[in-house]
Protein backbone atom coordinates (compact mmCIF):
# COMPACT_ATOMS: atom_id res chain seq x y z
CA UNK A 1 0.00 0.00 0.00
CA UNK A 2 1.46 3.33 -0.98
CA UNK A 3 1.39 6.30 1.30
CA UNK A 4 -0.96 9.12 0.33
CA UNK A 5 0.91 11.96 -1.41
CA UNK A 6 1.62 14.95 0.80
CA UNK A 7 -0.06 18.14 -0.41
CA UNK A 8 2.56 20.67 -1.62
CA UNK A 9 3.84 22.91 1.14
CA UNK A 10 2.59 26.51 0.92
CA UNK A 11 5.44 28.88 0.13
CA UNK A 12 6.48 31.20 2.94
CA UNK A 13 7.79 34.71 2.40
CA UNK A 14 11.35 33.61 3.14
CA UNK A 15 11.16 30.93 0.46
CA UNK A 16 9.90 33.39 -2.17
CA UNK A 17 12.60 35.90 -1.25
CA UNK A 18 15.32 33.27 -1.40
CA UNK A 19 14.11 32.12 -4.84
CA UNK A 20 14.21 35.68 -6.17
CA UNK A 21 17.64 36.34 -4.66
CA UNK A 22 18.90 33.10 -6.17
CA UNK A 23 17.64 34.25 -9.57
CA UNK A 24 19.47 37.57 -9.25
CA UNK A 25 22.66 35.63 -8.59
CA UNK A 26 21.82 32.99 -11.19
CA UNK A 27 22.50 30.00 -8.94
CA UNK A 28 19.93 27.62 -7.42
CA UNK A 29 20.41 24.22 -5.77
CA UNK A 30 18.43 21.37 -7.29
CA UNK A 31 16.66 20.56 -3.99
CA UNK A 32 15.67 24.18 -3.44
CA UNK A 33 14.45 24.46 -7.01
CA UNK A 34 12.35 21.32 -6.63
CA UNK A 35 10.67 22.67 -3.54
CA UNK A 36 10.16 26.01 -5.38
CA UNK A 37 8.51 24.15 -8.25
CA UNK A 38 6.20 22.36 -5.83
CA UNK A 39 5.10 25.33 -3.78
CA UNK A 40 5.61 28.64 -5.62
CA UNK A 41 3.03 30.03 -8.01
CA UNK A 42 3.92 32.05 -11.11
CA UNK A 43 2.06 35.10 -9.77
CA UNK A 44 4.01 35.03 -6.51
CA UNK A 45 7.30 34.82 -8.35
CA UNK A 46 6.48 37.66 -10.74
CA UNK A 47 5.37 40.00 -7.95
CA UNK A 48 8.36 39.04 -5.81
CA UNK A 49 10.65 39.56 -8.81
CA UNK A 50 9.36 43.08 -9.41
CA UNK A 51 9.61 43.92 -5.70
CA UNK A 52 13.10 42.39 -5.77
CA UNK A 53 13.99 44.67 -8.69
CA UNK A 54 12.81 47.72 -6.74
CA UNK A 55 14.79 46.59 -3.68
CA UNK A 56 17.85 46.04 -5.92
CA UNK A 57 17.59 49.59 -7.26
CA UNK A 58 17.06 51.00 -3.76
CA UNK A 59 20.05 49.02 -2.49
CA UNK A 60 22.33 50.40 -5.19
CA UNK A 61 21.02 53.93 -4.55
CA UNK A 62 21.87 53.56 -0.83
CA UNK A 63 25.34 52.30 -1.76
CA UNK A 64 25.85 55.31 -4.01
CA UNK A 65 24.70 57.66 -1.21
CA UNK A 66 27.21 56.08 1.18
CA UNK A 67 30.01 56.37 -1.37
CA UNK A 68 29.11 59.97 -2.17
CA UNK A 69 28.95 60.87 1.53
CA UNK A 70 32.42 59.40 2.04
CA UNK A 71 33.72 61.23 -1.02
CA UNK A 72 32.45 64.62 0.12
CA UNK A 73 33.51 64.12 3.76
CA UNK A 74 36.98 63.02 2.55
CA UNK A 75 37.47 66.40 0.90
Amino acid at each position, binding site marked *: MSLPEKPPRKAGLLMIVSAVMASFLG*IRRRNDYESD*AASLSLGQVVIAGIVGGIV*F*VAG*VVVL*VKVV*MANLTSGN
Partner: protein
Amino acid sequence: MNIATAANGHVTAHDDHDHAPKGMMRWLTTTNHKDIGSMYLWFSFFMFLVGGCMALTIRSELFQPGLQIVRPEFFNQLTTLHGLIMVFGAIMPAFVGFANWMIPLQIGASDMAFGRMNNWSFWLLPPAALLLVASMFVPGGAAAAGWTLYPPLTIQQGMGMDMAIFAIHILGISSIMGSINIITTILNLRAPGMTLMKMPLFCWTWLITAYLIIAVMPILAGAVTMTLTDRHFGTHFFSAAGGGDPVLFQHIFWFFGHPEVYIVIIPGFGVVSQVISTFSRKPVFGYASMVYAIAAIGILSFTVWAHHMYTTGMPISAQLYFMYATMLIAVPTGVKIFNWTATMWRGSLSFETPMLFAIGFIFLFTLGGFSGLVLAMAAVDVQMQDTYYVVAHFHYTMVAGALFSAFAGLYYWLPKWTGHMYNEKMGQLHFWLSFVFFNMTFFVQHFLGIAGMPRRIPDYALQFTEFNQISTIGAFGFGLSQLLVVYNVISCMRSGEKAPAKPWEGAEGLEWEVPSPAPHHTWEVQPIIK
Protein backbone atom coordinates in the same frame (compact mmCIF):
# COMPACT_ATOMS: atom_id res chain seq x y z
CA MET B 1 11.61 12.91 -20.26
CA ASN B 2 9.23 10.05 -20.99
CA ILE B 3 6.81 10.47 -23.82
CA ALA B 4 3.80 8.21 -24.12
CA THR B 5 4.41 6.42 -27.39
CA ALA B 6 0.72 5.89 -28.10
CA ALA B 7 0.45 9.57 -28.82
CA ASN B 8 3.19 9.42 -31.40
CA GLY B 9 0.92 7.70 -33.86
CA HIS B 10 0.09 11.18 -35.09
CA VAL B 11 2.33 10.73 -38.09
CA THR B 12 -0.09 9.55 -40.68
CA ALA B 13 -0.29 10.08 -44.39
CA HIS B 14 -2.69 12.97 -44.14
CA ASP B 15 -0.18 15.00 -42.17
CA ASP B 16 1.76 15.83 -45.26
CA HIS B 17 -1.16 16.44 -47.54
CA ASP B 18 -1.02 18.84 -50.46
CA HIS B 19 -1.38 22.46 -49.63
CA ALA B 20 -4.20 24.58 -50.84
CA PRO B 21 -4.02 27.17 -52.24
CA LYS B 22 -0.88 26.60 -54.24
CA GLY B 23 1.95 28.84 -55.40
CA MET B 24 2.34 32.34 -54.07
CA MET B 25 -1.12 32.32 -52.47
CA ARG B 26 -0.01 29.46 -50.21
CA TRP B 27 2.64 31.71 -48.69
CA LEU B 28 0.44 34.81 -48.60
CA THR B 29 -2.40 33.08 -46.80
CA THR B 30 -0.64 30.42 -44.76
CA THR B 31 -1.36 30.07 -41.06
CA ASN B 32 0.99 27.12 -40.63
CA HIS B 33 3.74 27.77 -38.11
CA LYS B 34 6.34 25.94 -40.20
CA ASP B 35 5.56 27.93 -43.36
CA ILE B 36 5.61 31.17 -41.42
CA GLY B 37 8.81 30.17 -39.62
CA SER B 38 10.48 29.44 -42.94
CA MET B 39 9.37 32.79 -44.33
CA TYR B 40 10.77 34.59 -41.27
CA LEU B 41 14.09 32.78 -41.69
CA TRP B 42 14.41 33.48 -45.42
CA PHE B 43 13.38 37.11 -44.91
CA SER B 44 15.88 37.63 -42.11
CA PHE B 45 18.67 36.04 -44.13
CA PHE B 46 17.88 38.29 -47.09
CA MET B 47 17.94 41.34 -44.83
CA PHE B 48 21.20 40.07 -43.31
CA LEU B 49 22.69 40.17 -46.81
CA VAL B 50 21.24 43.66 -47.47
CA GLY B 51 22.59 44.98 -44.16
CA GLY B 52 25.85 43.17 -44.84
CA CYS B 53 26.28 44.90 -48.20
CA MET B 54 25.82 48.23 -46.43
CA ALA B 55 28.48 47.21 -43.89
CA LEU B 56 30.87 46.30 -46.71
CA THR B 57 30.31 49.69 -48.33
CA ILE B 58 31.10 51.32 -45.00
CA ARG B 59 34.24 49.22 -44.63
CA SER B 60 35.29 49.98 -48.23
CA GLU B 61 35.11 53.69 -47.54
CA LEU B 62 37.19 53.15 -44.39
CA PHE B 63 39.88 51.14 -46.18
CA GLN B 64 41.83 54.35 -46.67
CA PRO B 65 41.75 57.75 -44.98
CA GLY B 66 40.07 60.48 -47.01
CA LEU B 67 36.87 60.14 -49.00
CA GLN B 68 36.91 57.67 -51.91
CA ILE B 69 33.67 55.85 -52.46
CA VAL B 70 30.67 57.52 -50.84
CA ARG B 71 29.72 61.01 -49.80
CA PRO B 72 29.69 61.64 -46.01
CA GLU B 73 25.90 62.17 -46.07
CA PHE B 74 25.40 58.77 -47.68
CA PHE B 75 27.91 57.19 -45.29
CA ASN B 76 25.74 58.36 -42.38
CA GLN B 77 22.68 56.86 -44.06
CA LEU B 78 24.50 53.57 -44.45
CA THR B 79 25.53 53.35 -40.79
CA THR B 80 21.96 54.16 -39.75
CA LEU B 81 20.24 51.70 -42.08
CA HIS B 82 22.84 48.99 -41.42
CA GLY B 83 22.01 49.15 -37.70
CA LEU B 84 18.25 49.34 -38.10
CA ILE B 85 18.15 46.55 -40.70
CA MET B 86 20.44 44.20 -38.80
CA VAL B 87 18.63 44.64 -35.46
CA PHE B 88 15.00 44.83 -36.60
CA GLY B 89 15.17 43.16 -39.99
CA ALA B 90 17.71 40.38 -39.53
CA ILE B 91 18.40 39.23 -35.95
CA MET B 92 14.96 39.69 -34.39
CA PRO B 93 13.01 38.07 -37.27
CA ALA B 94 15.54 35.23 -37.42
CA PHE B 95 14.80 34.26 -33.83
CA VAL B 96 11.05 34.71 -34.38
CA GLY B 97 11.51 32.27 -37.26
CA PHE B 98 13.18 29.79 -34.91
CA ALA B 99 10.37 30.34 -32.40
CA ASN B 100 7.68 29.71 -35.00
CA TRP B 101 9.29 26.53 -36.21
CA MET B 102 10.44 25.06 -32.92
CA ILE B 103 8.17 26.16 -30.05
CA PRO B 104 5.08 24.20 -31.18
CA LEU B 105 7.28 21.20 -31.97
CA GLN B 106 9.06 21.40 -28.62
CA ILE B 107 6.00 21.80 -26.42
CA GLY B 108 3.82 19.34 -28.34
CA ALA B 109 1.38 21.89 -29.77
CA SER B 110 -0.20 21.49 -33.20
CA ASP B 111 0.48 25.11 -34.20
CA MET B 112 0.88 28.60 -32.79
CA ALA B 113 -2.10 29.92 -30.83
CA PHE B 114 -3.16 32.62 -33.32
CA GLY B 115 -2.49 31.42 -36.87
CA ARG B 116 -3.86 34.43 -38.75
CA MET B 117 -2.17 36.93 -36.49
CA ASN B 118 1.01 34.97 -37.05
CA ASN B 119 0.60 35.40 -40.80
CA TRP B 120 0.01 39.13 -40.36
CA SER B 121 3.03 39.47 -38.06
CA PHE B 122 5.22 38.17 -40.84
CA TRP B 123 3.66 40.02 -43.75
CA LEU B 124 4.11 43.35 -41.98
CA LEU B 125 7.87 42.89 -42.28
CA PRO B 126 8.36 43.23 -46.06
CA PRO B 127 6.59 46.63 -46.26
CA ALA B 128 8.69 47.87 -43.33
CA ALA B 129 11.88 46.64 -44.99
CA LEU B 130 10.79 48.24 -48.25
CA LEU B 131 10.22 51.57 -46.48
CA LEU B 132 13.71 51.47 -44.99
CA VAL B 133 15.46 50.55 -48.22
CA ALA B 134 13.33 52.84 -50.42
CA SER B 135 14.06 55.77 -48.13
CA MET B 136 17.55 55.89 -49.64
CA PHE B 137 16.00 57.05 -52.92
CA VAL B 138 13.80 59.90 -51.67
CA PRO B 139 14.86 63.57 -51.60
CA GLY B 140 17.34 64.04 -48.76
CA GLY B 141 18.05 60.33 -48.59
CA ALA B 142 17.48 57.90 -45.75
CA ALA B 143 17.59 58.60 -42.04
CA ALA B 144 21.18 59.48 -41.17
CA ALA B 145 21.18 60.02 -37.42
CA GLY B 146 22.50 56.58 -36.46
CA TRP B 147 20.25 53.67 -35.47
CA THR B 148 19.72 55.39 -32.12
CA LEU B 149 17.87 58.22 -33.92
CA TYR B 150 19.00 60.98 -31.57
CA PRO B 151 17.54 64.48 -31.94
CA PRO B 152 18.23 67.19 -32.98
CA LEU B 153 19.42 65.43 -36.16
CA THR B 154 16.17 63.49 -36.46
CA ILE B 155 14.15 66.68 -36.29
CA GLN B 156 16.13 68.27 -39.10
CA GLN B 157 16.26 65.49 -41.69
CA GLY B 158 14.13 64.88 -44.78
CA MET B 159 11.27 62.52 -45.49
CA GLY B 160 13.58 59.49 -45.21
CA MET B 161 13.28 59.97 -41.45
CA ASP B 162 9.48 59.79 -41.65
CA MET B 163 9.79 56.56 -43.60
CA ALA B 164 12.14 55.14 -40.95
CA ILE B 165 9.72 56.16 -38.19
CA PHE B 166 6.83 54.50 -40.00
CA ALA B 167 8.96 51.39 -40.59
CA ILE B 168 9.77 51.22 -36.86
CA HIS B 169 6.06 51.51 -36.03
CA ILE B 170 5.27 48.60 -38.34
CA LEU B 171 8.17 46.46 -37.12
CA GLY B 172 7.10 47.14 -33.53
CA ILE B 173 3.51 46.07 -34.22
CA SER B 174 4.81 42.92 -35.86
CA SER B 175 7.09 42.11 -32.91
CA ILE B 176 4.34 42.72 -30.35
CA MET B 177 1.89 40.48 -32.21
CA GLY B 178 4.54 37.79 -32.56
CA SER B 179 5.23 38.01 -28.83
CA ILE B 180 1.56 37.76 -27.86
CA ASN B 181 1.40 34.65 -30.02
CA ILE B 182 4.48 33.09 -28.44
CA ILE B 183 3.36 33.78 -24.86
CA THR B 184 -0.14 32.43 -25.50
CA THR B 185 1.22 29.35 -27.23
CA ILE B 186 3.65 28.54 -24.44
CA LEU B 187 1.25 29.20 -21.60
CA ASN B 188 -1.84 27.54 -23.09
CA LEU B 189 -0.87 24.91 -25.65
CA ARG B 190 1.74 22.79 -23.88
CA ALA B 191 1.21 19.04 -24.07
CA PRO B 192 -0.20 17.33 -20.97
CA GLY B 193 2.63 16.81 -18.52
CA MET B 194 4.89 19.43 -20.14
CA THR B 195 5.18 21.65 -17.08
CA LEU B 196 6.91 25.01 -17.41
CA MET B 197 10.00 23.62 -15.70
CA LYS B 198 10.19 20.70 -18.13
CA MET B 199 10.22 23.00 -21.16
CA PRO B 200 13.35 23.14 -23.28
CA LEU B 201 15.43 26.22 -22.48
CA PHE B 202 14.77 27.65 -25.95
CA CYS B 203 11.07 27.96 -25.05
CA TRP B 204 11.91 29.52 -21.70
CA THR B 205 14.21 32.09 -23.25
CA TRP B 206 11.52 33.01 -25.77
CA LEU B 207 8.83 33.30 -23.09
CA ILE B 208 10.93 35.89 -21.25
CA THR B 209 12.02 37.63 -24.45
CA ALA B 210 8.40 37.94 -25.57
CA TYR B 211 7.48 39.67 -22.30
CA LEU B 212 10.40 42.04 -22.77
CA ILE B 213 9.29 42.86 -26.32
CA ILE B 214 5.77 43.68 -25.19
CA ALA B 215 7.17 45.85 -22.40
CA VAL B 216 9.63 47.92 -24.45
CA MET B 217 8.40 48.14 -28.04
CA PRO B 218 5.66 50.66 -27.11
CA ILE B 219 8.37 52.80 -25.50
CA LEU B 220 10.31 52.97 -28.77
CA ALA B 221 7.08 53.61 -30.64
CA GLY B 222 6.36 56.47 -28.23
CA ALA B 223 9.83 57.95 -28.69
CA VAL B 224 9.67 57.93 -32.48
CA THR B 225 6.08 59.22 -32.46
CA MET B 226 7.19 62.15 -30.31
CA THR B 227 9.95 62.72 -32.87
CA LEU B 228 7.32 62.64 -35.61
CA THR B 229 5.12 65.21 -33.87
CA ASP B 230 8.17 67.39 -33.25
CA ARG B 231 8.89 67.22 -36.97
CA HIS B 232 5.41 67.92 -38.31
CA PHE B 233 2.90 68.93 -35.65
CA GLY B 234 4.55 71.76 -33.75
CA THR B 235 5.48 69.95 -30.54
CA HIS B 236 8.87 70.48 -28.91
CA PHE B 237 9.49 67.34 -26.86
CA PHE B 238 13.09 67.09 -27.99
CA SER B 239 13.71 70.51 -29.49
CA ALA B 240 15.77 72.72 -27.21
CA ALA B 241 14.76 75.78 -29.24
CA GLY B 242 11.15 75.23 -28.16
CA GLY B 243 11.93 74.40 -24.54
CA GLY B 244 12.27 70.65 -25.10
CA ASP B 245 15.14 68.40 -24.15
CA PRO B 246 17.12 66.26 -26.61
CA VAL B 247 18.55 64.25 -23.70
CA LEU B 248 15.00 63.17 -22.81
CA PHE B 249 14.94 61.21 -26.08
CA GLN B 250 18.12 59.41 -25.12
CA HIS B 251 16.65 58.34 -21.80
CA ILE B 252 13.47 57.08 -23.47
CA PHE B 253 15.40 55.40 -26.28
CA TRP B 254 17.77 53.55 -23.96
CA PHE B 255 14.99 52.54 -21.58
CA PHE B 256 13.86 50.62 -24.65
CA GLY B 257 17.36 50.01 -25.98
CA HIS B 258 18.96 48.16 -23.11
CA PRO B 259 16.21 45.55 -22.74
CA GLU B 260 16.38 45.34 -26.56
CA VAL B 261 19.98 44.16 -26.21
CA TYR B 262 18.67 41.25 -24.15
CA ILE B 263 15.77 40.69 -26.56
CA VAL B 264 18.34 40.11 -29.25
CA ILE B 265 20.60 37.81 -27.24
CA ILE B 266 18.35 35.81 -24.86
CA PRO B 267 16.83 33.48 -27.52
CA GLY B 268 20.43 32.82 -28.58
CA PHE B 269 21.14 31.69 -25.00
CA GLY B 270 18.32 29.18 -25.42
CA VAL B 271 19.68 27.83 -28.70
CA VAL B 272 23.21 27.55 -27.35
CA SER B 273 22.03 25.77 -24.18
CA GLN B 274 20.32 23.09 -26.25
CA VAL B 275 23.17 22.69 -28.72
CA ILE B 276 25.84 22.44 -26.00
CA SER B 277 23.74 19.87 -24.14
CA THR B 278 23.18 17.75 -27.28
CA PHE B 279 26.81 17.64 -28.38
CA SER B 280 28.08 17.12 -24.83
CA ARG B 281 25.57 14.26 -24.47
CA LYS B 282 24.59 15.57 -21.05
CA PRO B 283 21.60 17.50 -19.74
CA VAL B 284 22.32 21.20 -19.46
CA PHE B 285 24.06 21.98 -16.17
CA GLY B 286 21.94 24.08 -13.82
CA TYR B 287 18.71 24.13 -15.83
CA ALA B 288 16.81 25.79 -12.99
CA SER B 289 19.60 28.30 -12.41
CA MET B 290 19.49 29.23 -16.08
CA VAL B 291 15.74 29.80 -15.98
CA TYR B 292 16.00 31.84 -12.80
CA ALA B 293 18.89 33.91 -14.14
CA ILE B 294 17.20 34.66 -17.45
CA ALA B 295 14.02 35.70 -15.63
CA ALA B 296 16.07 37.95 -13.36
CA ILE B 297 17.81 39.55 -16.33
CA GLY B 298 14.35 40.21 -17.76
CA ILE B 299 13.58 42.40 -14.77
CA LEU B 300 17.00 43.91 -14.07
CA SER B 301 17.58 44.90 -17.70
CA PHE B 302 15.24 47.84 -17.06
CA THR B 303 17.47 49.32 -14.39
CA VAL B 304 20.73 50.07 -16.22
CA TRP B 305 19.81 52.03 -19.35
CA ALA B 306 21.81 55.22 -18.80
CA HIS B 307 25.19 53.48 -18.99
CA HIS B 308 24.77 54.16 -22.72
CA MET B 309 24.84 57.91 -22.10
CA TYR B 310 27.36 58.74 -19.38
CA THR B 311 28.76 61.63 -21.39
CA THR B 312 25.48 63.42 -22.07
CA GLY B 313 25.47 65.04 -18.68
CA MET B 314 24.30 63.46 -15.45
CA PRO B 315 25.24 63.89 -11.81
CA ILE B 316 28.12 61.79 -10.52
CA SER B 317 25.76 59.93 -8.20
CA ALA B 318 23.68 58.84 -11.22
CA GLN B 319 26.86 57.74 -12.98
CA LEU B 320 27.81 55.69 -9.93
CA TYR B 321 24.33 54.14 -9.74
CA PHE B 322 24.34 53.03 -13.38
CA MET B 323 27.92 51.81 -13.13
CA TYR B 324 27.27 49.65 -10.04
CA ALA B 325 23.95 48.33 -11.36
CA THR B 326 25.54 47.39 -14.69
CA MET B 327 28.39 45.56 -13.01
CA LEU B 328 25.94 43.63 -10.84
CA ILE B 329 23.67 42.60 -13.71
CA ALA B 330 26.71 41.03 -15.35
CA VAL B 331 26.70 38.40 -12.58
CA PRO B 332 23.64 36.33 -13.65
CA THR B 333 24.83 36.59 -17.27
CA GLY B 334 28.33 35.46 -16.30
CA VAL B 335 26.93 32.50 -14.38
CA LYS B 336 25.46 31.18 -17.62
CA ILE B 337 28.92 31.04 -19.17
CA PHE B 338 29.96 28.79 -16.27
CA ASN B 339 26.82 26.67 -16.73
CA TRP B 340 27.63 26.04 -20.40
CA THR B 341 31.23 25.25 -19.55
CA ALA B 342 30.10 22.89 -16.79
CA THR B 343 27.72 21.21 -19.23
CA MET B 344 30.69 20.43 -21.47
CA TRP B 345 32.86 19.36 -18.52
CA ARG B 346 33.40 15.59 -18.68
CA GLY B 347 30.82 15.34 -21.42
CA SER B 348 31.22 13.08 -24.41
CA LEU B 349 31.92 15.95 -26.76
CA SER B 350 31.75 15.98 -30.52
CA PHE B 351 32.34 19.01 -32.69
CA GLU B 352 29.76 19.16 -35.44
CA THR B 353 29.05 22.58 -36.95
CA PRO B 354 26.31 23.61 -34.47
CA MET B 355 28.64 22.82 -31.57
CA LEU B 356 31.48 24.79 -33.15
CA PHE B 357 29.26 27.83 -33.50
CA ALA B 358 28.01 27.38 -29.91
CA ILE B 359 31.55 27.17 -28.51
CA GLY B 360 32.58 30.10 -30.70
CA PHE B 361 29.59 31.94 -29.23
CA ILE B 362 30.67 31.25 -25.64
CA PHE B 363 34.24 32.34 -26.26
CA LEU B 364 33.50 35.50 -28.24
CA PHE B 365 30.37 36.54 -26.33
CA THR B 366 32.45 36.40 -23.16
CA LEU B 367 34.95 38.79 -24.76
CA GLY B 368 32.06 41.07 -25.71
CA GLY B 369 30.77 40.86 -22.15
CA PHE B 370 34.14 41.88 -20.76
CA SER B 371 34.49 44.85 -23.09
CA GLY B 372 30.97 45.77 -21.94
CA LEU B 373 32.19 45.80 -18.36
CA VAL B 374 35.05 48.08 -19.40
CA LEU B 375 32.54 50.46 -20.97
CA ALA B 376 30.31 50.23 -17.90
CA MET B 377 32.95 52.08 -15.89
CA ALA B 378 31.88 55.69 -16.15
CA ALA B 379 35.41 57.07 -15.89
CA VAL B 380 36.65 54.85 -18.73
CA ASP B 381 33.54 55.36 -20.83
CA VAL B 382 34.22 59.10 -20.99
CA GLN B 383 37.27 58.18 -23.08
CA MET B 384 35.57 55.44 -25.09
CA GLN B 385 32.14 56.94 -25.81
CA ASP B 386 31.39 56.95 -29.53
CA THR B 387 34.72 55.40 -30.47
CA TYR B 388 35.39 52.18 -32.34
CA TYR B 389 35.82 50.42 -28.99
CA VAL B 390 32.03 50.61 -28.62
CA VAL B 391 31.61 49.34 -32.19
CA ALA B 392 33.91 46.40 -31.43
CA HIS B 393 32.09 45.66 -28.15
CA PHE B 394 28.59 45.47 -29.54
CA HIS B 395 29.63 43.52 -32.61
CA TYR B 396 31.12 40.89 -30.29
CA THR B 397 27.71 40.58 -28.65
CA MET B 398 25.53 41.01 -31.74
CA VAL B 399 27.54 39.11 -34.38
CA ALA B 400 29.56 36.61 -32.36
CA GLY B 401 26.67 36.44 -29.88
CA ALA B 402 23.34 36.60 -31.65
CA LEU B 403 24.45 35.68 -35.19
CA PHE B 404 26.69 32.78 -34.16
CA SER B 405 23.93 31.36 -31.96
CA ALA B 406 21.51 31.72 -34.89
CA PHE B 407 23.94 29.78 -37.10
CA ALA B 408 24.25 27.13 -34.35
CA GLY B 409 20.45 26.82 -34.36
CA LEU B 410 20.29 26.80 -38.14
CA TYR B 411 22.70 23.88 -38.53
CA TYR B 412 21.19 22.10 -35.52
CA TRP B 413 17.59 22.12 -36.75
CA LEU B 414 18.20 22.20 -40.52
CA PRO B 415 17.86 18.37 -40.80
CA LYS B 416 14.50 18.60 -39.02
CA TRP B 417 13.29 21.36 -41.33
CA THR B 418 14.51 19.99 -44.63
CA GLY B 419 14.74 16.23 -44.04
CA HIS B 420 18.31 16.32 -45.32
CA MET B 421 21.74 16.65 -43.76
CA TYR B 422 23.85 19.65 -44.68
CA ASN B 423 27.43 19.23 -45.87
CA GLU B 424 29.33 18.92 -42.58
CA LYS B 425 32.75 19.82 -43.99
CA MET B 426 31.37 22.95 -45.61
CA GLY B 427 29.58 23.85 -42.36
CA GLN B 428 32.82 23.57 -40.43
CA LEU B 429 34.64 25.62 -43.05
CA HIS B 430 31.89 28.23 -42.71
CA PHE B 431 32.48 28.32 -38.96
CA TRP B 432 36.26 28.62 -39.12
CA LEU B 433 36.22 31.28 -41.83
CA SER B 434 33.55 33.23 -39.94
CA PHE B 435 35.49 32.90 -36.69
CA VAL B 436 38.82 34.04 -38.12
CA PHE B 437 37.44 36.84 -40.29
CA PHE B 438 35.10 38.04 -37.54
CA ASN B 439 38.04 38.54 -35.19
CA MET B 440 40.10 40.08 -37.95
CA THR B 441 37.32 42.60 -38.55
CA PHE B 442 36.40 43.52 -35.02
CA PHE B 443 39.28 42.73 -32.65
CA VAL B 444 41.45 45.46 -34.15
CA GLN B 445 38.61 47.93 -33.68
CA HIS B 446 39.26 47.78 -29.92
CA PHE B 447 42.70 49.28 -30.58
CA LEU B 448 41.28 51.88 -32.94
CA GLY B 449 38.77 52.89 -30.28
CA ILE B 450 41.32 53.11 -27.49
CA ALA B 451 43.48 55.24 -29.79
CA GLY B 452 40.53 57.59 -30.27
CA MET B 453 39.00 56.83 -33.67
CA PRO B 454 35.39 58.06 -33.58
CA ARG B 455 32.54 55.93 -34.94
CA ARG B 456 30.15 57.02 -37.72
CA ILE B 457 32.76 59.23 -39.42
CA PRO B 458 33.86 58.36 -43.00
CA ASP B 459 37.35 59.80 -42.70
CA TYR B 460 40.12 59.29 -40.14
CA ALA B 461 43.61 60.35 -39.17
CA LEU B 462 46.53 58.66 -40.95
CA GLN B 463 47.74 56.69 -37.94
CA PHE B 464 44.57 54.56 -38.00
CA THR B 465 45.15 53.30 -41.54
CA GLU B 466 46.70 49.86 -40.96
CA PHE B 467 44.13 48.63 -38.45
CA ASN B 468 41.34 49.90 -40.68
CA GLN B 469 42.77 48.02 -43.65
CA ILE B 470 42.96 44.80 -41.61
CA SER B 471 39.39 45.36 -40.48
CA THR B 472 38.13 45.94 -44.03
CA ILE B 473 39.87 42.84 -45.39
CA GLY B 474 38.39 40.85 -42.52
CA ALA B 475 34.93 42.24 -43.22
CA PHE B 476 35.07 41.18 -46.87
CA GLY B 477 36.33 37.74 -45.83
CA PHE B 478 33.48 37.47 -43.33
CA GLY B 479 30.89 38.63 -45.86
CA LEU B 480 32.07 36.26 -48.56
CA SER B 481 32.18 33.36 -46.07
CA GLN B 482 28.43 33.75 -45.62
CA LEU B 483 27.91 32.66 -49.22
CA LEU B 484 28.95 29.20 -47.99
CA VAL B 485 25.90 28.95 -45.75
CA VAL B 486 23.62 30.00 -48.63
CA TYR B 487 25.10 27.27 -50.82
CA ASN B 488 25.05 24.72 -48.00
CA VAL B 489 21.40 25.33 -47.13
CA ILE B 490 20.23 25.23 -50.75
CA SER B 491 22.23 22.10 -51.60
CA CYS B 492 21.01 20.49 -48.35
CA MET B 493 17.40 21.15 -49.36
CA ARG B 494 17.94 19.80 -52.87
CA SER B 495 20.31 16.90 -52.54
CA GLY B 496 21.54 16.40 -48.98
CA GLU B 497 21.79 12.97 -47.46
CA LYS B 498 18.46 11.79 -45.98
CA ALA B 499 18.18 12.77 -42.31
CA PRO B 500 16.71 10.46 -39.67
CA ALA B 501 14.11 11.73 -37.17
CA LYS B 502 16.91 12.28 -34.65
CA PRO B 503 20.14 13.05 -36.48
CA TRP B 504 22.06 13.99 -33.32
CA GLU B 505 22.87 11.18 -30.92
CA GLY B 506 22.61 13.28 -27.78
CA ALA B 507 19.51 15.28 -28.73
CA GLU B 508 16.55 15.27 -26.34
CA GLY B 509 13.10 16.71 -26.79
CA LEU B 510 9.79 16.38 -28.56
CA GLU B 511 11.01 17.89 -31.83
CA TRP B 512 13.10 14.77 -32.43
CA GLU B 513 10.07 12.47 -32.04
CA VAL B 514 8.55 13.63 -35.32
CA PRO B 515 10.01 12.52 -38.66
CA SER B 516 12.46 14.61 -40.68
CA PRO B 517 11.37 16.71 -42.46
CA ALA B 518 8.72 17.59 -39.91
CA PRO B 519 5.35 16.92 -41.58
CA HIS B 520 3.20 19.94 -42.45
CA HIS B 521 0.99 19.20 -39.45
CA THR B 522 2.46 17.80 -36.25
CA TRP B 523 1.14 16.95 -32.78
CA GLU B 524 -2.51 17.02 -33.84
CA VAL B 525 -2.85 14.51 -31.03
CA GLN B 526 -0.84 15.95 -28.19
CA PRO B 527 1.85 13.72 -26.71
CA ILE B 528 1.66 12.94 -23.02
CA ILE B 529 4.81 13.74 -21.08
CA LYS B 530 5.43 11.61 -18.02
